[in-house]
């Protein structure tokens, strides 16, 4: 694979995450290989249930433990293999070198603590004394564009709007100036305008701090405005990996093309919204061969039998499809304007 980049900040190789329940063994993530350079923004895109969040959580080993899970493969961070790291070393990594912002700003805060308490807690790696920690917390809040910070330190999370809360969450994740920030659907639960502001803040901070950003999203609009590279996940595997421009203009995998056509475009005439037929198969019911073949317009016998490997289409464009490069016929025919 070409992901064996020695200078990469984060390199996942053949990452497999398997959940073991009494009923079944569920392979949530299968053979995902990704790399992320320092200061780069990589977007992880896919529908719900394709393994985006599981991938992100497995990097920090934060997967919930009641369904016991096994993580195979290697995770290199800053030149260190961290997937076998002892728990103690992992704790030093979390929050200090890798920050994380969660999807739901309504649930990501402990309701019994004030915003200030949360921020101070995020600074625990730095061992500051109380007044300095408070100053740093205020500085963090103003750096994420939080208005009138001093008073809001004393506010409870439920007294803030979702956008403000997400700004606090970002401030907390950035508290120890991590080299990598994982934003797990960080803007999904927000209004569009707020979403744009948060993304701009994230992007700006990422540039200023020269921090790598792993942006997990299912929103290609977010990808288009914020990401440098895109990895498209389907059914626990990377199906396409390319620079953002290549994906948006010349997506090679039919699934990526399908995703792109799902975006409603204001310049197009009104009509039915496009959708990819069918749904993502649950992890334990993935079909043999290419997991996308039941929903793919180009599927043939090969697709049903043989799983396509991730291959280089061009220098920085990889795709896992037997028919890579074929364009999906424009289904726009179905959505012709009704009135001439």
């Amino acid at each position: 694979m070409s992901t064996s980049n020695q200078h990469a900040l984060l390199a996942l190789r053949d990452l497999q995450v398997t959940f073991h329940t009494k009923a079944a063994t569920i392979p949530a993530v299968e053979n995902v290989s990704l790399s992320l350079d320092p200061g780069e923004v990589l977007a992880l895109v896919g529908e719900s249930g394709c393994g985006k969040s599981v991938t992100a959580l497995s990097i920090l080993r934060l997967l919930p433990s009641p369904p016991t899970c096994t993580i195979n493969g290697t995770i290199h961070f800053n030149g260190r293999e961290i997937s076998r790291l002892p728990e103690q070393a992992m704790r030093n990594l979390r929050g200090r070198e890798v920050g994380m912002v969660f999807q739901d700003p309504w649930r990501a805060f402990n309701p019994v603590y004030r915003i200030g308490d949360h921020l101070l807690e995020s600074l625990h790696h730095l061992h500051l004394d109380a007044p300095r920690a408070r100053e740093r917390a205020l500085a963090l809040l103003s750096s994420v564009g939080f208005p009138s910070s001093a008073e809001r330190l004393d506010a409870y999370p439920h007294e803030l709007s979702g956008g403000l809360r997400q700004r606090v969450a970002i401030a907390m994740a950035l508290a120890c100036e991590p080299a990598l920030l994982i934003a797990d659907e960080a803007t999904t639960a927000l209004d569009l305008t707020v979403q744009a502001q948060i993304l701009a803040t994230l992007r700006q901070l990422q540039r200023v701090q020269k921090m790598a950003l792993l942006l997990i999203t299912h929103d290609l609009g977010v990808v288009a405005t914020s990401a440098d590279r895109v990895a498209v996940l389907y059914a626990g595997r990377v199906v396409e990996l390319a620079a953002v421009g290549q994906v948006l203009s010349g997506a090679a995998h039919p699934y990526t093309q399908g995703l792109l056509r799902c975006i409603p475009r204001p310049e197009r005439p009104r009509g039915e919204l496009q959708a990819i037929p069918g749904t993502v198969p649950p992890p334990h019911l993935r079909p043999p061969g290419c997991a996308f073949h039941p929903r793919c317009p180009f599927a043939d016998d090969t697709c049903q039998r043989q799983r396509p490997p991730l291959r280089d289409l061009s220098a920085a464009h990889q795709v896992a499809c037997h028919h890579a490069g074929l364009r999906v016929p424009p289904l726009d025919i179905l959505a012709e304007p009704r009135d001439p």
Partner: protein
Amino acid sequence: MSHDHPQRADAAPPSWWQDLADTIRQRPALRAALAVLLALFLLAVYAPLLASDLPLLAREHSQWSSPWLNNLFNKTYYDGPLDPTFNLLILALPLYGLARWLLLRRIPHLSRWAGALFVLAASWLALDPAANYLNPPDSPRESGLHDLLGAYQAPYPKGVHDRSWQWHLPAPIAFSFRTTTAHPHSAPTWQGRPLLHSILWQGSTDAPPRLHLAPSLPRWRHPLGTDNLGRDLTARLCYGARAAITVGLAAAAIAVGLGTLLGLLAGWVGGWVDLLISRLIEVMVCFPSLILILALTALLDAPSLFHLIAVIGLTRWTAPARLMRGEALRLRQEVYITAALALGLRPREVLFRHLLPNAIGALAVATTFAIANAILVESTVALLGMGDATVPTWGKMLNDGRVFHNTAMMLLPGLALFVTLLAINLLGEGLRDAFDPRQQRQRPPPS
């Protein structure tokens, strides 16, 4: 340190506890329950000041003395460590209040030092009765407050009724919880009772004749009358509050502490730890706990109140354990728990700093129910005649009344139990609502 930034300390927002206090203030039922419990606590602490057979102040041989004060920590007189420990609070509460009022007015940051000092002093003083209880000396020891308060007193000091003092100031009720009125001015006897007495304060006519003094009508010396041994019921009720508070708090502390620890561990760690603890809970639940408690007390020769506390605490932890296991299972799914772990906090820190405070509503309810339950169980054991015979608990009083077929002797402790348990349960209900931070607050939202 915050000393360097007084202007910042002044601008500090109301703390979580202040918010909680605000919430309590807005709930009438909770306030009433708290008032009742506070009154009960004060009554328990100041029981010797209200009812004692020792003169508060006396003059004899042209010398002033206070037999009451001198015997506050006399374990032989009080027959055990319970009352001397409570008596510490008689002096400590006003001293602490005074210290706060005097010191904290002037030096704002001294509060935590004063508090720490108070706790230290109180525990040093409490160690003395505790040590004496665990290791009863052959000869009376002179230590702790005895040195401070002067000479050691005779084990059974002469009281108001035994000695003709030159002059003395008795307590409002000049009887302790076990002073029997066996002197000429005793109560009107049971045989010669008036009509009203026979209706309200009746002893059953079927009762076999006993070699007891009869329970007496309320009179000015005995505001609620006396029991069959001529002991003042008011005094016994007040001292009974001490036993109830001790049993309730201590047994609940053991039960809830053990239950919380095991329950949280089971829910948080999961796996075989959960399996083991859950099975242990199920095994414990299989035994009817009252029968278990009775069996365990029967094993002990003469169970003291502290044996009973240990037995109740060690058998009643299953309900809080189950509750806290459920809370841990529910709360560990929360995103903020994962978020706290993602900050690199230790699992222990996440468990106790993030998970436990969110379970505190459930914990408060569990604790209040555990307190009420412990008091009730102790009363039941005492009612069955298997409790600590030396301590005037409400259950013991009920049993005395039951044996003697006397309405007043059963009605009064029963009423005290009822009011106490009701107040505790109301408190639990109120706290459950008050601890929920998502409840509406009257605090102005930050603009």
